[in-house]
């Protein structure tokens, strides 16, 4: 025999179920725009039926909500992270290389080609009128412009290197901060889930943090089953590794640390750059993410001295240095490495500025280009050459020139009449020496890449190709990441239409259950108040 008020209980269960469902829908609607939120769903079932032993069998007792689950495909998260690592790396490279490209400012009417062109044009004018003071002054100024272009380029590259170093510092701090937050969340999630429930929101937050982390560095995140809990559920622990070593292992967290370099990795580097390692002293090899992008561009010198195998800032500074050294040596001394042996032999001495004579005095042995010395003042030809006399000793002096300190010698700056045009003292109309210098522009043996302008063209093309590669890979990767993101949203995102439909469904269920109570109430009213009176 069923209890008299059984119907009330069933109707009340219905009210509760509808209410709980509406609560979850309410929560979903609230979080429709919350980043990383996965929609939740109630787990609803019919309550245990009542067995009435009068031959009618089992009588249903209503419904109940036994849990709230988040809808999430964790496999998609893992995919997202691994693709996001690559995206982070190339998107960073793309941004940095486009900054480098802007520094070169080519093709334009104010980049290297124009400056080189103007310099040689002024020399051509000088060849037509070697005695003109106006033209000599012009040659001097154009020479200064050429030198300043390289100084400026090198300075900007160095600034960019320092800037990237700062970004690396900020990123490592952010990674450590994310690590601390994940460690905290791990504790909360583990404690909350001990009773068998699921910490939906906290898990969402953790996934969102790992999403961000995967943009910065190559991580591998997994939940590892280590045993069974007393509740019968798997005892799972979150482990995040970076290049094989645990960054987060359940409740423990190893920080990354910045280590200031004692020795430069590349000769071209600015001093005191940071290396990234573990705080416990272990070394760390970063294989992906924005940090890899930063490191590759900051340190990349095509693999030399253990630098990343990438054409980064040092490799471009190195090329610029090589350009100014080779060009200055050819222009000043006439040394050209004809056999590409990497060194200058006595037989490779041609005619240079040093062999000629200016006007007004019999001075010779003047170098047109030297370098900046103390106080950023250009040094004289004699100070630069420092007494070297053999071809190999003189050639060795040029290794001191860099793009940053490239300059027109103080001799020329003080007296432009020393610009050597003639091969014989006292002949103002003699341009034999200058003619040799003019030939240098089209001397395709000066560099392995060809003439001076070919060399710079190859530098700019290398950068263009590198930057184009970064643009392409990051664009492709962005599409892939977006697609996975879409699949995740498709799986876990809140659909307002769906929620509204469900809302109506549960609202109606609630109304019906309430109506049921009314009906029951009427029945009992009749039974108690009217029957048998």
């Amino acid at each position: 025999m069923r209890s008299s008020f059984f119907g009330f209980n069933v109707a009340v269960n219905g009210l509760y179920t509808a209410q709980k469902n509406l609560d979850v829908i309410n929560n979903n609607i609230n979080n429709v725009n919350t980043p990383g939120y996965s929609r939740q769903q109630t787990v609803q079932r019919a309550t245990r039926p009542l067995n009435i032993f009068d031959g009618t069998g089992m009588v249903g007792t209503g419904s109940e909500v036994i849990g709230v689950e988040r809808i999430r495909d964790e496999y998609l998260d893992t995919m997202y992270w691994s693709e996001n690592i690559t995206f982070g790396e190339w998107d960073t490279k793309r941004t940095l290389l486009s900054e480098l490209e802007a520094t070169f400012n080519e093709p334009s009417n104010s980049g290297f080609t124009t400056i080189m062109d103007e310099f040689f044009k002024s020399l051509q004018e000088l060849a037509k009128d070697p005695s003109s003071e106006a033209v000599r002054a012009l040659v001097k100024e154009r020479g200064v412009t050429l030198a300043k272009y390289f100084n400026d380029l090198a300075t900007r590259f160095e600034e960019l290197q320092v800037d990237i170093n700062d970004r690396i510092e900020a990123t490592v701090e952010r990674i450590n901060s994310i690590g601390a937050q994940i460690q905290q969340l791990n504790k909360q999630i583990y404690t909350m889930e001990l009773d068998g429930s699921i910490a939906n929101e906290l898990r969402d937050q953790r996934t969102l943090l790992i999403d961000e982390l995967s943009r910065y560095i190559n991580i591998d995140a997994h939940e590892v089953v280590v045993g069974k809990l007393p509740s019968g559920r798997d005892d799972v622990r979150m482990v995040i590794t970076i290049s094989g070593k645990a960054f987060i292992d359940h409740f423990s967290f190893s920080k990354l640390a910045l280590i200031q370099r004692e020795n430069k990795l590349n000769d071209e580097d600015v001093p005191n750059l940071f290396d990234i390692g573990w705080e416990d002293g272990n070394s760390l090899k970063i294989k992906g993410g924005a940090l890899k992008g930063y490191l590759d561009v900051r340190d990349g010198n095509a693999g030399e001295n253990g630098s990343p195998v990438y054409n980064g800032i040092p490799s471009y500074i190195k090329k610029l240095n090589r350009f100014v050294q080779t060009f200055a040596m050819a222009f000043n001394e006439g040394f050209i490495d004809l056999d590409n042996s990497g060194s200058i032999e006595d037989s490779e001495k041609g005619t240079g500025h040093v062999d000629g004579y200016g006007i007004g005095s019999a001075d010779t042995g003047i170098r047109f280009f030297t370098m900046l010395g103390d106080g950023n003042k250009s040094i004289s030809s004699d100070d630069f050459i420092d007494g070297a006399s053999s071809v190999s000793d003189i050639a060795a002096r040029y290794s001191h020139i860099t793009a940053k300190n490239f300059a027109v010698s103080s001799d020329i700056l003080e007296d432009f009449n020393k610009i050597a045009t003639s091969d014989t003292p006292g002949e103002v109309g003699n341009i034999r020496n200058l003619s040799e210098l003019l030939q240098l522009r089209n001397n395709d043996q000066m560099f392995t890449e060809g003439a001076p302008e070919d060399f710079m063209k190859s530098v700019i093309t290398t950068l263009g190709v590198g930057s184009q590669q970064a643009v392409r890979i990051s664009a492709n990767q962005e599409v892939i990441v977006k697609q996975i993101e879409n699949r995740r949203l498709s799986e876990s995102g809140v659909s307002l239409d769906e929620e509204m439909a469900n809302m109506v469904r549960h609202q109606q269920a609630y109304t019906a259950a309430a109506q049921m109570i009314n009906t029951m109430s009427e029945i009992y009213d009749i039974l108690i108040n009217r029957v048998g009176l």
Partner: protein
Amino acid sequence: MRVTNTMLINNMISNIGKNMRRMEGYQRKLATGKKIAVPSDDPIVAARALKLRTDVSQLEQYKRNAEDAVSWLEITESALNNIGEILQRVRELAVQAGNSTMTTEDTQKTAEEVEQLKGQLIKIANSTYAGRYIFSGFKTDTKLLDDDGNFVVEVEDTESIIYEVGISDSININVLGGELFNHGEEVIVGQPAKLITMMNEFIAALKSGDKIAICDPNDDLPEGESILEKLDDEMNNLLAIRASVGARYNRLELTIDRLDINKFNFTKLMSENEDIDQAENIMLLKSEENVYKASLAGGARIIQTSLVDFLR
């Protein structure tokens, strides 16, 4: 596939963003007229652009050089022309003087005229172009001859002034004073030029009335020793030099023509390489604008409505 509101909005934002980026690209091309802004837009076009720029600017410089060479040669040519006229006049006078009907008074007058002509020759020897002595070889800051017709500078026959008018294409633009005034003999500073010496001999002969020295009517003198024969020799030399200057002038004109054509071709190549087709670009921009408008309109509709709008 299940589609959610966030997806719709994300996709719309991302697609409109892509539209905007493409439009920005076309607009930038429209404004700059160039296919590329940075090398990474197209490294190959960029590399060619750099090369072509260098080529065009070199051609411009070579053309300027060739034009300057032409002006120098024009000055030279006019000096040579004057010398030619002077020698012609001197020859006429020599022929007249050789005529036995001339009186002593006449020959004295002739001597005076020849003296004047000698002065003019010396002035021509010191002609300048933009303040530079054109016949002094490399010593463009010094006169060739002093007032007496003696060499002031030593002009060696290697002192050719060379202008570059192309890659490994150069032209000698000066006529050496030694070759012109001291034909066939070495220049020695302080010594008179051969041409001037001949004038001096002519004047002396006129003053002394030595007709044999002037025109050698009876072949008394060895071959080439008379003033008239020497004059002919000088005139031949002058003609040879004028021919060479003329040939160089000619060559320069051809060079300038060729440089003009090359510059035109290279500029055209440069334009083909890096300039955009404006008509095509505008069309693409317009079509992109339409796509943009459509996606905005579509997006606005999609994100506006949901079931909420119909539950009343």
